């Protein structure tokens, strides 16, 4: 929530700076006293965790780039050199590789949290759209980063994904082929491809950082959503960001880093694929080409569609559809807590994403393919059917009078719930 500034410059230099570039004022108003709903649960700590992960990835990545050689002949060996001969190189490289996975863990939790609590609804549509944009940029960045070791999986993942563009040949003959050759910088995936992937992999995190600034800006205009989904009504509903949320986010961050460190130090290759320790060989296709785990649900959707072009369209649509969520959901209530029917569909959707992830790791044949198609249908139906329809037919449970009420119990004057809905309901009738 935009709120009047309470910053009082105390020293001469602060007054001087305040009249020229009021960074201390912004820090004070937006990060120290920023009024934050008092009932944010631990699912809200992933924003801070994601900020940390972005900074950690950029920091480790910059040092890795000092030692990495982006050429067909030397890429694989230069990474092994980092692992063997660069001081703390193994720690940098494993932190960066595992860090990408942890980044996605946090991003997916953050996204599902937004979906569950309706954080995309007015007035937070732009905030949500920027978030989806960050997710898209992350996917592109991670994909390009995975190509850099130039192992077998790197090489063949690049080959498979860039080849998707050739499906445009079925729209305009020749268009796809020309586009793919332009992306490759040649007639096959090779040195020029690796060079441009490296260049863009270095660029994209800074674009992400820029969009993150916009994302936080767009957050600080309407202010945080919260688990009840109801608006902040009085000052009693909020606490200053510091120290309440700096300490809560800090605790969650350290717990997250604990899990991160356990993987880095004890199972650094757990989330990778053994084939990527085999140098790229254009003449030998791996028996199963699988992407990193965080792309598996999308990969399952791609392969569920028998037609290549429509498969690619479905793949893009599976993420693109998130942009339209603020307008697809017709419910008047934000938080799924108060949505007795939608709740079941929501958890079915979470399950669908997990199952699609599993199916994406399996060969696309037999039952895997059939299940892949069934769950792909539900994936899209959730957005295109469940969101608009359930919002219209569902009777939400009674909302609490204020954010403070469920926390501290009914206060002196109990405001009546906004949309007065009878608490007693028969779900069977509603379905």
């Amino acid at each position, binding site marked *: 929530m935009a*709120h009047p500034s*309470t910053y009082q410059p105390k020293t001469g230099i602060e007054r001087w700076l305040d009249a020229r570039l009021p960074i201390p004022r912004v820090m004070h108003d937006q990060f120290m*006293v920023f*009024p934050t709903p*008092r*009932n944010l*649960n*631990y699912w809200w*700590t992933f924003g801070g965790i994601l900020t940390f992960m972005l900074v950690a990835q950029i920091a480790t990545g910059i040092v890795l780039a000092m030692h990495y050689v982006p050429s067909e002949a030397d890429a694989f*060996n230069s990474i*092994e050199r980092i*692992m*063997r001969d660069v001081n703390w190189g*193994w*720690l940098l490289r*494993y932190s960066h590789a595992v860090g990408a996975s942890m980044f996605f863990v946090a991003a997916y939790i953050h996204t599902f949290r937004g979906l569950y609590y309706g954080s995309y609804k007015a007035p937070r549509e732009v905030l949500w759209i920027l978030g989806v944009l960050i997710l898209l940029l992350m996917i592109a960045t991670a994909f390009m980063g995975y190509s850099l070791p130039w192992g077998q999986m790197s090489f063949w993942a690049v080959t498979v994904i860039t080849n998707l563009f050739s499906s445009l040949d079925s729209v305009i003959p020749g268009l796809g082929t020309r586009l793919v050759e332009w992306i490759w910088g040649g007639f096959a995936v090779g040195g020029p491809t690796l060079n441009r992937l490296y260049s863009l992999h270095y660029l994209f995190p800074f674009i992400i950082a820029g969009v993150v600034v916009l994302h936080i800006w767009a957050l600080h205009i309407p202010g945080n959503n919260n688990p009840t989904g109801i608006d902040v009504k009085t*000052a*009693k509903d*909020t*606490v*200053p960001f510091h*120290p*309440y949320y700096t*300490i*809560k986010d*800090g*605790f*969650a961050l*350290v*717990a*997250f*880093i*604990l*899990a991160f*460190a*356990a*993987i*880095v*130090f*004890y*199972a*650094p*290759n*757990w989330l990778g*694929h*053994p*084939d990527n*320790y*085999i140098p790229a060989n254009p003449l030998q296709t791996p*028996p*199963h080409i699988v992407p990193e785990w965080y792309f598996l649900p999308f990969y399952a959707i791609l392969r569920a569609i028998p037609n290549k072009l429509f498969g690619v369209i479905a793949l893009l649509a599976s993420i693109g559809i998130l942009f339209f969520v603020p307008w697809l959901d017709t419910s008047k209530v934000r938080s799924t807590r108060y949505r007795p029917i939608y709740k079941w569909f929501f958890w079915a959707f979470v399950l669908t994403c997990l199952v699609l992830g599993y199916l994406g790791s399996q060969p696309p044949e037999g039952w895997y393919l059939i299940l892949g198609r069934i769950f792909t249908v539900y994936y899209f139906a959730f957005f295109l059917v469940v969101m608009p329809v359930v919002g219209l037919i569902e009777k939400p449970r009674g909302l609490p009078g204020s954010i403070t009420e469920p*926390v501290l119990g009914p206060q002196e004057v109990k405001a009546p719930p906004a949309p007065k809905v009878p608490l007693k309901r028969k779900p069977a009738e509603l379905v």
Partner: protein
Amino acid sequence: MRSPSATLAATLALLVALPVAGMAEEAGNNHAPEIARQSWSFSPPFGTYDNAQLQRGFQVYKEVCSSCHSMRLLSYRNLGESGGPEFSPKAVDILASQVQVTDGPNEKGEMFQRPARPSDPFRSPFANDQLARNANNGALPPDLSVIAKARPGGADYLYALLTGYRPAPEGFQVAQGMHYNAAFPGHQIAMPPPLSDGVVSYTDGTKPTVDNYARDVAAYLMWAAEPKLEERHKVGARVMIFLIVFVVIMYLAKRAVWARLKHGGATHAA
């Protein structure tokens, strides 16, 4: 309201951390035949390499494997580094100097042979892949530098492979020049059984059996693929202790700060 959710967050962290810590170095995928888990001295979270085992494993590599398999990413100096076989500096000098490597060009513009120095990379048995294929019935013996990370199952797989040679079961057709192996995907491997009892003479009293050779060379190859594993486990233990203490402090600090709200303290002062 805060205790259950804090407990939840802590439990989540543990739920991720515990199975992960117990996990073997390499998580396998399910495309290869069943590979039996072996017990290794280097298993996480506290494992270290057994120097004597790595030295024996290097001996097996040197006397058997290295006639076909290169290890291009290793140098002789690595054999003396801490967290590895830890040969003495003198032993490393001798091991290197036993090998002739090509150097040059000299001032006359000619390439010449000289004994290797510790800084030289391991000499490869073949000058190029074509030569290697030509000498091996068309099959290319893979470089072994990171083989323990490049195969699902890692050291377990290498051990299973080296001890997996047996007569083909009834009705299984083995192509000409191929050999039946229980652990190899598809069960047909071009490499003939490389080990037999007594083929390498151990000097430390370890029994010269195929089983011991396979175990030792698998451990050696794990070290070659992951030479910083000991350092990683050692630093990891310190980092984990630090983080566990830190997370407890943060939790208590969080409770202390939020307790102010409960006691009717001011909410949003601004």
